[in-house]
């Protein structure tokens, strides 16, 4: 309901609603009570009126009788009547009737004949039409009553004797029941009086003419001595009907109008009070509600601002009440949230070491630039940072990175941004930079880096390699551009030429690489990855003592994907971390399966730098040995020399744990990296695999042969098994065997094979050996 949507309205509506309810209830009660009071009052009035009416009629009758008696006792009247002279009798009847206001005067003989009648002077004697009245008079000496006479009028009639001194005749006097009569009764009783003859119209009434007309049309015949409601001309009455002589009835009407008017006036006053009260309440409760809801609304608006991320406005509610307290809490919440958000933003967008923006911030910055304008993304990687870090320690390395950051920041063009990506890698985004300006920028940057940097009093020579990519030529999104720039940077580092443009180092990764991660994930689920095993042959005994597991991708469309096409990418993107656990599990299972069949070979698996630095690796290996009931010496982990050098300290620590587990460890591609002999000496490894680049040219390059021969000697001197891989000819094999190399591996011995083929092959070999 919209009526209750706001607190303000709800308060006002509830308050006003309650008041309206109470007022209505009060008005209803007053109206009800009024009706009841009017009803009771009316009934009381009518009951009293009905009682009084009888008394009044009796009294009236007695007075008329008395008056008639006095008249009948007048000597002249009696004398005139006694004369029996018609003319005289009529005259005296008229005269004396006029004296007391009788309209009708009659003389009756003692036996009840009308002998004189003022209304019909010429008529012959006839019987008196109201025998009952006469009988009553004969018994009581006089009588009175109401009768409808021949003229159609209603009369109050009294019959009194003419005494001379004995009764000689009766005189009948008739007093018309007229409006004046009714008015007199109305005055005395306070009721409206109407006299109606049965079935006839109204004879007398104290009612106003229009009401009399209304009464004539009203079915009053149903009235009796019980008060009943009656409506005349829209006015309310209560009425009773009382018998009035044998042929007439008297209607007593009590008008409700005066009482109703009093109550109407009362109700009107109450309505005015109620209306003003409600009006005051509406104003008052809206005022109150506003005082309550206003600060609440202010708080709500403040909350909305905070929700929208605007923490700059202080909450301006200073009420001394609970809302004020709420506002104060709100205010401290606002400042707290603002401070925390600032901190979060800093953590999210800032590199804590150098205070520079981080990769995320840089990506947002690039996304915020005009997408149609050109932009430059440059990646700078310090050369030889790792040795400095190793030699002088992390704190020095960190301070060096901070100094480098400051120096790079000082060279930043006004519309550019500098970020530290990770380690010793920094990146720039410069809007609007084109080929020429980028080259200038790169030259200035590299020149600036050549100035020695002083850290803790030591002057350090640093240099960097820079890779530059352009939007939109090399890509549109941050990941692509950074990747292209990094590739260029690696190229520059390899060529030691300072900087390289992405466009100069050829096409980017083949298009299939862009969707490679998704495909690799699907491949893992669909078990498209398979392991091939290449035998490791002990040259002295000519026995297969091991097998190196090699990852292959049997792609449903592209066929067998060469390892070089996806493994570096998996390592770069970190997807290798999802593949390695699967691979290690497969290798362990395969080793266990072969052992079941009596094939006792040490199965090797390759680990990338990321795998080696993964803290979960040791636990995983322990679990695998456990699950497959393998002796640790049944498995060998091969780590390239370059992988070791990414984080030599952590690598050493993990290798120590793996060695402690009893696993065999092997250094792969030895000779291609920068491992120092002192570092090599400290490694807990069992095997050294000479990089195959040396083996392939044994026959043609005396220098390589010398390196191999001395490496074999070195390995043996350190107590290591020396492995030569990439043996492609019998001459090389023989040379190596002669040189004392322990184990050989290569196409000449066998290509990598699927596990069943390997098993078949090794069993066949065994038969051959036995020969």
């Amino acid at each position, binding site marked *: 309901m919209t009526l209750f949507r706001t607190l303000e309205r709800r308060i006002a509506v509830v308050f006003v609603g309650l008041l309206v309810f109470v007022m209505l209830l009060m008005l209803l009660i007053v109206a009800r009570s009024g009706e009841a009071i009017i009803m009771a009052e009316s009934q009381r009035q009518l009951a009293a009126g009905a009682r009084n009416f009888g008394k009044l009629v009796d009294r009236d009758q007695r007075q008329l009788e008395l008056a008639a008696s006095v008249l009948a006792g007048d000597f002249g009247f009696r004398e005139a009547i006694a004369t029996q002279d018609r003319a005289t009798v009529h005259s005296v009847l008229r005269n004396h009737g006029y004296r007391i206001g009788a309209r009708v005067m009659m003389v009756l003989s003692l036996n009840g004949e009308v002998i004189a009648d003022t209304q019909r002077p010429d008529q012959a004697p006839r019987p008196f039409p109201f025998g009952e009245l006469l009988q009553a008079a004969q018994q009581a000496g006089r009588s009175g009553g109401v009768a409808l006479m021949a003229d159609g009028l209603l009369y109050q009639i009294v019959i009194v004797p003419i005494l001379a*001194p004995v009764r*000689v005749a009766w005189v009948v006097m008739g007093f018309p029941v007229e409006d004046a009569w009714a008015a007199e009764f109305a005055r005395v009783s306070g009721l409206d009086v109407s006299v109606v003859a049965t079935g006839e119209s109204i004879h007398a009434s104290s009612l106003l003419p229009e009401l009399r007309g209304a009464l004539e049309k009203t079915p009053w015949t149903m009235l009796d001595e019980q008060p009943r409601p009656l409506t005349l001309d829209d006015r309310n009455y209560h009425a009773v009907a009382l018998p009035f002589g044998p042929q007439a009835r008297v209607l007593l009407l009590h008008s409700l109008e005066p009482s109703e008017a009093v109550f109407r006036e009362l109700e009107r006053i109450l309505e005015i009070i109620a209306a003003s009260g409600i009006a005051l309440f509406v104003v008052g409760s809206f005022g109150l509600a506003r005082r309550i809801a206003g600060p609440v609304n202010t708080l709500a608006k403040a909350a909305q601002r905070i929700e929208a991320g605007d923490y700059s406005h202080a909450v301006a509610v200073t009420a001394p009440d609970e809302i004020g307290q709420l506002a104060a809490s709100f205010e401290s919440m606002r400042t707290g949230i603002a401070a925390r958000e600032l901190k979060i933003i800093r953590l999210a967008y800032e590199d804590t070491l150098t205070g520079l923006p981080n990769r995320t911030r840089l990506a947002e910055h690039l996304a915020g630039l005009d997408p149609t304008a050109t932009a430059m993304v440059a990646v700078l990687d310090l050369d030889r940072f790792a040795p400095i870090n190793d030699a002088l320690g992390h704190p020095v390395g960190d301070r060096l990175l901070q100094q480098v950051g400051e120096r790079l920041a000082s060279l930043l063009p006004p519309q550019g941004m500098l970020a530290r990506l990770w380690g010793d890698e920094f990146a720039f985004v410069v809007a609007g930079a084109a080929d020429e300006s980028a080259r200038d920028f790169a030259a200035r940057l590299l020149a600036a880096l050549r100035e020695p940097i002083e850290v803790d009093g030591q002057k350090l020579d640093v240099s960097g390699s820079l890779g530059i990519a352009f939007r939109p030529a090399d890509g549109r999104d941050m990941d692509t551009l950074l990747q292209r720039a990094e590739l260029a940077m690696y190229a520059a580092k390899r060529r030691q030429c300072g900087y390289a443009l992405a466009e100069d180092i050829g096409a980017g990764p083949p298009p299939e690489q862009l969707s490679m991660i998704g495909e690799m994930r699907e491949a893992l689920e669909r078990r498209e990855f398979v392991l091939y095993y290449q035998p490791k042959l002990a040259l002295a005994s000519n026995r297969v003592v091991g097998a190196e597991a090699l990852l292959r991708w049997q792609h449903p469309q592209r066929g067998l994907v060469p390892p070089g096409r996806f493994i570096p990418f998996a390592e770069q993107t970190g997807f290798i971390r999802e593949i390695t656990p699967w691979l290690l599990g497969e290798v362990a299972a395969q080793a266990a399966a072969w052992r079941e069949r009596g094939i006792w070979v040490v199965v090797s698996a390759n680990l990338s730098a990321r795998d080696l630095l993964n803290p979960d690796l040791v636990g995983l290996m322990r679990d695998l040995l456990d699950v497959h009931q393998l002796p640790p010496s049944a498995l060998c982990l091969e780590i390239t020399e370059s992988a070791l050098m990414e984080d030599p300290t952590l690598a050493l620590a993990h290798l120590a744990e793996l060695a402690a587990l009893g696993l065999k460890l092997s250094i792969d591609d030895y000779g291609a990296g920068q491992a120092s002999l002192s570092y090599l000496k400290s490694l807990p490894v069992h095997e050294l695999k000479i990089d195959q680049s040396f083996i392939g040219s044994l026959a043609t390059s005396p220098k390589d042969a010398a390196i191999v021969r001395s490496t074999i000697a070195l390995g043996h001197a350190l107590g290591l098994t020396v492995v030569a891989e990439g043996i492609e000819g019998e001459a090389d094999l023989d040379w190596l065997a002669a040189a004392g190399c322990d184990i050989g591996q290569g196409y000449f011995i066998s290509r990598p094979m699927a596990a069943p083929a390997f098993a078949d092959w090794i069993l066949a070999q065994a038969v051959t050996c036995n020969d």
Partner: protein
Amino acid sequence: MTVKTPAGAPVKDAAVVLEPTSGTAPPARQRAAIEQRGREFIPHLTIVQKGTAIDFPNHDPFKHHVYSFSPAKVFEIKLYAGKPANPVIFDKTGAVALGCNIHDWMEAHVLVVDTPWFAKTGANGVARIERVPAGAYRLRLWHPRQKAPAADSSVDLGGAMRKLDLTLDVTPRVIVPRPPVDAGGY
């Protein structure tokens, strides 16, 4: 003669009249009087022979106004004190009701008959007519408040005393209220 109601109560002031069926009665040579005393006519009933003069002596210390509207004798003696100079001669037979115009309750009756032989009953209902010559008579019975006229009857009288029992139904006398005597010296 004893007059009783049908219920057997003696009737006071009943007139018993003997009219000779043949010949004429001797003319009246009498005078009668109806006194006004103590605001009453005394006696209540007077029977006279036709032609009798009746005096209306007033013994009260205030005036009376005697009247009659009866057809047998209409007369009026306006406010007088003491004995009026002239008596009223009742020269027609019939019943005459007398009233006083000043005192409504005062009532007297005069029965004018054409015979000298009449009597009225006392409180015991007994009336006695003496010295009636023997012969045939018509016996009439009358009372001022008789309910119905009694039928005449015939009686033959010899020299001996006759005793007759008669019956007449009368209404009780209407007591007209009157002010007390000592009230203001009326």
